[in-house]
């Protein structure tokens, strides 16, 4: 069985979908944001690989066909961005200023913490794209020489934390305007946070999902510049 699993082409893809579904099921049953399906699936598959003494490569032999879809899917993010373009045009000054400052503040904070903790350059560029959507963040980390798997997990943890804490954070900072709330959530905690923004209201949700793509694109530029600083 062990030798068979090593050579199997479908095992990895099957396990990925199965454990993701399990995560979706658990989240629906409990309603807990911490049971994010990506986190659940990741932990379950790591446990399975450890238990069955399988290498990452054995799993990825099948799972890579799912990852293959990531670039075309990221390209498709232009479609919702285009559909929300009118909304952006209407409030462009405030929204673009907000998103741009989020990208700069995020990069400055990562730089500050990396210096403070004495992280390596590789670790630093791993975290630079942590506030943006995984699809773009992975590509940035890879291109800059970061540890892609750590970037992915950092992005997901950021999203889950943003989702859970958004209401409290916005209250502490006294952010009450629905557009400002949406921009703050979307540009700090991407799609996973946006799920919370959609619960808060229609404007919050639309602004949040708009911010994902714009913050993602701006972060590509900011990461390239900031990667040269440390």
């Amino acid at each position, binding site marked *: 069985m062990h030798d068979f699993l090593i050579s199997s082409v479908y095992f990895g893809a099957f396990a990925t979908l199965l454990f993701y579904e399990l995560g979706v099921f658990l989240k629906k049953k409990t309603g807990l944001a911490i049971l994010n399906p990506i986190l659940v699936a990741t932990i379950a598959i790591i446990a399975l690989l450890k238990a069955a003494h399988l290498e990452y490569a054995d799993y990825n032999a099948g799972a890579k066909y799912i990852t293959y879809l990531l670039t075309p899917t990221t390209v498709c993010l232009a479609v919702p961005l285009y559909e929300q373009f009118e909304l952006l045009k209407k409030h462009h000054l405030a929204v673009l200023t907000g998103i741009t400052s989020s990208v700069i503040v995020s990069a400055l904070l990562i730089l500050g913490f990396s210096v403070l903790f004495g992280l390596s350059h590789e670790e630093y560029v791993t*975290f630079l794209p942590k506030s943006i959507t995984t699809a773009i963040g992975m590509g940035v980390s890879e291109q800059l020489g970061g540890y892609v798997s*750590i970037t992915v997990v950092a992005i997901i943890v950021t999203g889950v934390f943003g989702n859970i804490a958004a209401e409290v954070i916005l209250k502490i900072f006294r952010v*009450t305007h629905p557009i400002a709330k949406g921009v703050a959530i979307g540009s700090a905690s991407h799609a996973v946070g946006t799920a919370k923004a959609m619960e808060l209201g229609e404007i919050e949700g639309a602004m949040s999902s708009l911010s994902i793509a714009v913050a993602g694109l701006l972060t590509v530029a900011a990461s390239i510049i900031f990667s040269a600083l440390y």
Partner: protein
Amino acid sequence: MPQAYPSVNDPSRNAVKLSKKAHSAKPGGLAFRFLIKYDYVIMKYIRQIIIILFISFLGEILNHLIPLPVPASIYGIIIMFAALVSGILKTESVKETSHFLIDIMPIMFVAPAVGLIEAWDLISGSLVQYLVLIIASTILVMGITGRITQRMLTKTGEKGGADHA
């Protein structure tokens, strides 16, 4: 001619329409009827996939040609967005497949995240620092962005709520 595509909601009407079309267009019985149905329903998605893969491929070419650490997918987003804004591409030509792919996108992050298993030795020592960095920066980025955006909105004379819907 997008109106010629059968609507998803009404399969029976479409079936009749399609078989009539199949008969009147070309004689050839069942095999042809299948082909024409294939053309109308399936080809729409095939065409959408062709467009999306073509733009991804263009992004790959730009990533290869331009010496910047910009992922192929980013060039792809820009090309797709420019094509939509300029009207070269209609939303209808990519809409369904795009929304489907975006809906299932979270599944695509599982395999890269499982790669953590190989990076574990690297992170186990600095796990606490990583968590502090992630949580503190998320709080500050969200709070500061919210404040700045709100400030800009009040400055440009926007009032919160109803008039934005």
